[in-house]
């Protein structure tokens, strides 16, 4: 009833709801506090924090794209290869003297194209699961990446092309190379735009509906296939943009970039509380998921823990994060 709606809104603070939305940010804060306590001199240095943000910018974009796909109960394994393909096309175009505004567009365009192929393959060819289509494009895009580069890195990009991945603003306060990275602004702009799209537009809501119950979406007159093609194109777009940032940061296009990074993106989305079965997941959660993985890696690095242990710990974090989610949902069902 209407009256009760107003009451529940007026009743204000709801602890369970608050924890569900912001609990993951508390995890990020606690991790930061612990690391700050252990290595205050290193962890909290402006340079280290800048590094964390810069190093995880590409992963954040990949994870944002992956979120949209996972909300529809899909998966996109091709994002790492798409990022690499975008990266080397940017590098080759930049070396060939293509005007830089065009070069900037090439990365996202490559991503959109791969995403379109994924979406169309999934919906027109009626392949049984996106795992298969995107496993195909994972290999195709990676193969193309090696083909166009002959397997060798391409370096020496125009400064304008490198800008978004490399620049940072020290505002005269921070000592170089510390400061607010331009890539962070790109990630923030993408995150806000995606949040608005997913929560405030009809197509965003349809994406959640498709994840919750595709049959319900279909009989509500939603063009499910059309929406899915857009979803995979969004994911591809973000992978292409991630390629642009990575090309800028490393000043090169190397064909081995991002091998296996699709799994990190999936992990960040899942740690961020999205459901692998679709219908659930938030932009805020994904950003927190990326930060949890990034801070964990950084914290282990600055404490000289070996990379092998890092991998084991990340694996444990994934399992624990999802298990906490399982417990939380079981508890909420009992009420």
């Amino acid at each position, binding site marked *: 009833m*209407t009256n009760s709606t107003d009451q529940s809104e007026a009743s204000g603070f709801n602890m369970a709801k608050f924890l569900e939305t912001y609990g993951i940010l508390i995890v990020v804060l606690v991790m930061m506090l612990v690391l700050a306590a252990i290595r205050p001199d290193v962890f909290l240095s402006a340079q280290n924090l800048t590094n964390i943000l810069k190093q995880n910018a590409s992963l954040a974009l990949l994870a944002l794209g992956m979120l949209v796909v996972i909300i529809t109960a899909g998966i996109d394994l091709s994002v790492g290869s798409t990022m690499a393909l975008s990266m080397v096309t940017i590098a080759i175009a930049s070396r060939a003297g293509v005007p830089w505004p065009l070069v900037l567009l090439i990365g996202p365009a490559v991503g959109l194209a791969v995403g379109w192929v994924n979406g169309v393959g999934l919906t027109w060819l009626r392949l049984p699961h996106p795992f298969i289509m995107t496993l195909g494009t994972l290999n195709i895009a990676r193969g193309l990446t090696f083909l166009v580069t002959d397997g060798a890195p391409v370096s020496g990009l125009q400064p304008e092309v490198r800008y978004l991945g490399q620049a940072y603003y020290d505002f005269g306060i921070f000592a170089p190379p510390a400061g607010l990275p331009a890539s962070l602004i790109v990630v923030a702009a993408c995150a806000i735009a995606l949040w608005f799209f997913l929560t405030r*537009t009809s197509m965003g809501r349809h994406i959640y509906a498709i994840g919750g119950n595709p*049959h319900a979406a279909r*009989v509500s007159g*939603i063009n499910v296939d059309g929406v899915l093609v857009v979803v995979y194109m969004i994911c591809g777009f973000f992978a292409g943009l991630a390629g642009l940032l990575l090309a800028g940061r490393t000043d090169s296009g190397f064909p081995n970039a991002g091998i296996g990074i699709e799994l990190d993106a999936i992990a960040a989305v899942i740690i961020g509380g999205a459901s692998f079965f679709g219908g659930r997941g938030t932009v805020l959660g994904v950003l927190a998921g990326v930060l949890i993985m990034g801070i964990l890696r950084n914290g282990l690095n600055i404490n000289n823990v070996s990379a092998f242990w890092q991998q084991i710990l990340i694996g444990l974090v994934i399992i624990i994060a999802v298990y906490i989610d399982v417990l939380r949902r079981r508890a909420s069902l009992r009420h």
Partner: protein
Amino acid sequence: MEPVRDSSPGALLEARGISKYFGAITALHNVNFHVAPGEVLGVVGDNGAGKSTLMKILSGLFAPSEGQLLFNGEPVRFSGPKEAQRRGIEMVYQDFALAGNLPIYENIYLGREPGRKLGPLTLVDHAKARRMAGEHLDRLHIHVKSVDQNAEDLSGGQRQAVAIARATAFDAKLVIMDEPTAALAIKEVGKVLDLIKSLKQHGVAVIIISHRMDDIFYCCDRVMALYQGSNFAEAPLDATHRNEVIGWIMGTKGHEEALAHDQLH
């Protein structure tokens, strides 16, 4: 078979000689019926009698192989559910077809969100959708804790009520319900049947597909039986009785009241 008649006076929807073939299989053969505003028509038939095929044709999911649909006396063809909805024909599915992860108000307006158009998108006005949903549920005397509850947290009866609310949210003329009580707990059945009666009072035509004689005899005005894809029998409710209708479902006519088929329902 009955020859094709002239348009039934006052019919909201009329089906004339509808046939549907799937390859070599004949799902429907020359089916005729009509339903008037404010009338509740019960459609009965055994599994495979063609009930769901007929309903899918009415709601625009299938196109008929032969025959014609008349809406307000005017021939219509639907290319999809959206087009049927535009005419005011809404379907309530047996499994409710709700997105469990979305709140009640979003389910009610799914695919028809209120808000400002921006190219192919709508900027959803959530506050307006909440308000509209609350008012609409009040009109139907449906009580829920909050329109922000997710559909997956509702009972079967509440889900059915939300599905009916969605079907009637946009000035529905005809609501088609597939087994509206099959998934409900017994204590919830009465509420949903009363809801159907209140639609009728608002002048909405209702077609109910059901196996349950109790449902048919509680809220229908007329009952029609399909048998092996064709019209088998039809009667106003006050001119028939349970055992006769059960007989029709099994393809026999002239069952007496005395025959003890009651245990079948």
